[in-house]
């Protein structure tokens, strides 16, 4: 029978104050479906629907050392306690801070961004997560800690399918690192969704540098269209050496459309998703160019 109300199943609550305590707890409770509770903005809804019934929750909100958001060795280090809302204003000068502050506005709504965390999005790995697309585009490094030690997982190995990652059950995603981008690099982001704040049908992240009038380096990633976000090599390759103009962008967008194996659901056919992705790639590339000219 369908329950009359949506209430999470019972669980044991743990509130560690340090990373060491948290991973010790995780090692104990992970075998009994113990999980990390970060912002709760994805986990609590799934618990309300009883799609998830964790027996233990390890709440990491009280761990101060996870709140760090700093640049070290040319990389922005985003601790597991950093919430989406931290990115409303650029967190670093230059193109990376600008990109993150534009992308964050597409994630859910303000009262969800005050709780949800960057690392929670990465760990949750929804195919339509904006942060996952950014992480794929920038080859982010994920720092996972357990009682067995610390390992650094590159984005290409981290995302393994719909809500599936390389994290083991007892691992805490302590931090995600993004390379900062040098001044002058152009960044663009575009996504399409049916209502403001909804999960996107498809999105594109475009990052490129221009030298002597042609594109010298490029990163182009698509999210929402497939099970995991990824860079599209063929399109990145086609961009390099081309002038940053509509023809070049359209060619890249077409190559993306051909490379994709889009997800289908009851609202979106694969063909429709491919069309939307093509349009988002073109828009992201154009947007980057317009901002550079502005």
């Amino acid at each position, binding site marked *: 029978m369908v329950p009359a109300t949506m209430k999470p199943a*019972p669980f*044991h609550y743990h509130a560690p104050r340090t990373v060491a305590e948290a991973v010790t707890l995780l090692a104990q409770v992970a075998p009994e479906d113990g999980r990390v509770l970060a912002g709760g903005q994805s986990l609590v809804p799934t618990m309300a629907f009883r799609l998830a019934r964790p027996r233990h929750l390890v709440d990491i909100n009280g761990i101060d050392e996870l709140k760090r958001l700093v640049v070290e060795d040319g990389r922005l280090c985003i601790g597991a306690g950093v919430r989406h809302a931290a990115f409303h204003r650029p967190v670093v000068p230059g193109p990376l801070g600008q990109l993150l502050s534009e992308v964050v506005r597409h994630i859910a709504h303000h*009262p969800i961004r005050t709780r949800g965390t960057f690392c929670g999005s990465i760990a949750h790995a929804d195919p339509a997560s904006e942060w996952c697309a950014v992480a794929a585009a920038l080859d982010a490094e994920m720092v996972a800690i357990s009682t067995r030690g610390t390992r650094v997982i590159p984005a290409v190995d981290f995302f393994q399918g719909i809500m599936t990652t390389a994290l083991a059950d007892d691992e805490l995603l302590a931090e995600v690192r993004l390379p900062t981008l040098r001044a002058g690099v152009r960044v663009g982001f575009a996504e399409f969704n049916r209502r403001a704040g909804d999960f996107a049908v498809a999105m594109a992240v475009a990052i490129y540098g221009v030298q002597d009038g042609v594109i010298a380096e490029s990163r182009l990633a698509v999210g929402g269209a497939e099970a995991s976000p990824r860079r599209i090599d063929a399109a990145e390759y086609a961009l390099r050496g081309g002038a940053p103009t509509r023809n070049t962008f359209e060619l890249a967008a077409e190559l993306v459309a051909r490379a994709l194996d889009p997800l289908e659901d009851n609202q979106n056919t694969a063909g429709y998703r491919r069309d939307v992705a093509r349009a988002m790639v073109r828009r992201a590339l154009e947007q980057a160019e317009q901002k550079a000219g502005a």
Partner: protein
Amino acid sequence: MTDKLDIILNLNGRDHSIRVEPRKTLVDAIREDCGLTGTHIGCEHGVCGACTVILDGETVRSCLMFAVQAQGKTIRTVEGLADGKTLHPLQRAFMAHHGLQCGFCTPGFLMLAANTLEQHPDIDDEELREVLSSNLCRCTGYQNVVKAVRAAADEMRNPAKNPAN
């Protein structure tokens, strides 16, 4: 199955000592254990915003937090908006501009708008619409909600216009 925990919730400046299971959401604790039923429950999965409250100065969906997580924080609900018998400018504006019909979504919109205007008294229309898109209303069609918040914003910046003064 899990033991109940003794916690204190600070709501609108008053402490409430309650005993809850860890799985109890903040909104259920506010309504059932603290007896403040002004905060409404719509979807219980973060989509509608009816349960919006202000926690340590930021709006949150109180259906997506557990009550135990709100210990030691200050929580403001719709009951705390009015100053005694004097309604908050937003409450008056919602009445004057028909920002509500059935009223189910209203407490959530009021808390969302109150926090927004406190943080950004000079918010422009585009930003305001963007923030208000956080919450759902099945009755008003939103236009009068936008009008009401805009009117309250103007009044709060320029209190001389307040007819109650």
